[in-house]
């Protein structure tokens, strides 16, 4: 009973012009898989002026295992794509987490103690709502061609592209792509068609995941239990979603029988212990195990893997779909720049270089969380239990308690960045996304830094008496103190922004160079470097 609920949104198959073409049609970019990651990639490319074909083998959304936690960085990306505000409005915003041992509260944490960010630390929202928002957005974009019920069955590598054979309800057809983006998930068909090895660690522990409909006034916070009385000896997680839906995640151990554990009566009995005295209805139930693994290389000639097709982690820490959307954003601007002839081909290689760092960081965090929750032996369990026993009285032990280290953006060791020649304090880090900051427009209307960026390369320059400097070619300029006003001084604080300070921002809102004063030659050089020209 993997899906108690039927799918929510249906879309129709439509015959594509390619299917009637006399000769094989060629597209600059084809994305395979219209999940959150593929949709984000396609929309980003489309907004950057690259025509995209997006294929999906289904014609509906709302089935299957789903993410619910969307991190701040992901929301910032989705905001740039045009759906961020809609999602935040719809989702449940949370920033508090509580960790219990037995039935005692060990500690609580606040994920966004700082004001002045447009996006919250996290929202919870059912994945199908996020997919629906992205599909709606993609339908507004004339150069994005979304084809449902288009299943890839063949892939031939060409010297400078790939040829796809696609099956539809009306038979097969073929077309070519200069670049093929594989966003087709953990069971990637494209990975299989290329015969790529997907090696890593499989964890034996089985988990029960359930979404229940329940009217309850539990506070909006992430709750995690080690060995609560209602679920003996194992861990449990509870999270709120919109529509009075709650996510319950119960560790069942390695020996659980997946068939028996999905029997509705058995699931209900387990959940009643968690939720009593509240009445609830089951929305969706599944048993899962998980893997931590990645492809050796994310780029195979003209086929680029993103999201779960490239790497998989455990669900603890919200690092799956979030990192996939961050892959999509990292690749989109680079591919667009290469297709437009603005960048060297090696810029694409930097996608792999940067996102493998992120994948390894995510796999590392996810593996450590899992090791803490599911010790491998009684000796390891004894040490884990010692940490839990010390946690109420010792701060150092609380810091070791690991119920999932929640996703934050990776700071890359990036060849696209120009190393600092003077020290900068503040929250802004080279090769990381800019911290957001509250500003005001010229007319006094409030605005945030990130939503004010152009989406291309951009200089953010702090006014220093003189009129603003001339813009280097291909780089937008925003002057703090002119275009945007830092009335609260938080931009200055977060960027260590003294008068004249100059920040070069990548199209994906990452900081790639900074100086204490405006130097057009240095900026041009850093821009070339970031484009690998």
């Amino acid at each position, binding site marked *: 009973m993997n899906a108690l609920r039927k799918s929510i949104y249906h879309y129709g198959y439509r015959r594509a012009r390619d299917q009637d073409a006399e000769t094989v049609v060629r597209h600059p970019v084809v994305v395979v898989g219209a999940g959150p990651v593929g949709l984000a990639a396609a929309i980003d490319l489309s907004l950057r002026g690259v025509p995209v074909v997006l294929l999906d083998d289904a014609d509906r959304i709302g089935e299957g295992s789903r993410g619910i936690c969307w991190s701040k960085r992901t929301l910032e990306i989705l905001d740039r794509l045009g759906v961020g505000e809609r999602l935040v409005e719809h989702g449940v915003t949370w920033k508090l987490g509580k960790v219990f041992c037995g039935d005692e509260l060990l500690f609580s944490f606040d994920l966004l103690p700082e004001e002045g960010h447009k996006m919250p630390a996290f929202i919870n929202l059912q994945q199908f709502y996020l997919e629906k928002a992205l599909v709606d957005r993609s339908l507004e974009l004339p150069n994005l061609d979304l084809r449902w019920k288009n299943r890839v069955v063949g892939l031939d590598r060409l010297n400078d592209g790939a040829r796809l054979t696609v099956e539809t309800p009306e038979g097969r057809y073929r077309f070519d792509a200069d670049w093929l983006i594989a966003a087709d998930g953990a069971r990637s068909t494209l990975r299989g068609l290329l015969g790529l090895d997907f090696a890593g660690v499989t964890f034996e522990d089985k988990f029960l995941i359930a979404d229940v409909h329940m009217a309850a006034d539990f506070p909006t916070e992430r709750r995690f239990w080690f060995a609560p009385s209602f679920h003996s000896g194992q861990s449990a997680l509870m999270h709120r979603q919109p529509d009075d839906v709650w996510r319950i995640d119960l560790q069942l151990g390695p020996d659980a029988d997946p068939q028996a554990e999905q029997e509705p009566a058995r699931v209900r009995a387990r959940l009643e212990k968690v939720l009593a005295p509240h009445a609830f209805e089951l929305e969706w139930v599944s048993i899962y195990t998980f893997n931590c693994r990645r492809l050796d290389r994310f780029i195979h000639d003209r086929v680029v893997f993103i999201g779960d097709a490239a790497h998989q982690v455990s669900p603890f820490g919200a690092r799956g779909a979030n990192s996939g959307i961050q892959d999509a954003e990292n690749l989109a601007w680079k591919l667009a720049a290469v297709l437009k002839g603005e960048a060297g081909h090696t810029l694409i290689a930097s996608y792999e270089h940067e996102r493998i760092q992120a994948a390894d960081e995510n796999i590392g965090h996810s593996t450590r969380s899992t090791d803490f929750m599911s010790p491998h032996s009684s000796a390891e369990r*004894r*040490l884990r*239990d*010692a*940490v839990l*026993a*010390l946690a109420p009285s*010792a701060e*150092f*032990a609380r810091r*070791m308690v690991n119920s999932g280290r929640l996703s934050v953006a990776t700071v890359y060791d990036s060849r696209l960045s120009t190393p600092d020649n003077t020290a900068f304090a503040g929250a802004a880090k080279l090769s990381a996304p800019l911290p957001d900051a509250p500003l005001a427009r010229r007319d006094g209307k409030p605005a945030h830094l990130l939503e004010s960026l152009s989406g291309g390369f951009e200089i953010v320059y702090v006014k220093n008496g003189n009129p603003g400097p001339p813009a280097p070619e291909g780089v937008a300029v925003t002057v703090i103190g002119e275009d945007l006003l830092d009335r609260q001084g938080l931009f200055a604080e977060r960027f260590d922004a003294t008068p004249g300070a100059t920040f070069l921002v990548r199209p994906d809102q990452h900081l790639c160079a900074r100086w204490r004063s405006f130097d057009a030659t240095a900026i041009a050089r850093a821009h070339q470097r970031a484009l690998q020209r």
Partner: protein
Amino acid sequence: MPKLATASRFADPDAAYLALVEARRNLSDAQAAELDSKLVLILANHVGDLDVLREAIALAKESR
């Protein structure tokens, strides 16, 4: 350069050993193992240096 101090640092080593012995007197193996786990964590945090911790682990594993 090893950072782990292996020269004696207690003015009265016998008293230090006695304190550790007395802590486990009348404990079962399981209780003593639990105590040792906590002590390891507490003392490791007090040291607060991952290099020293790794050297200590290596020394503990190689000596028999």
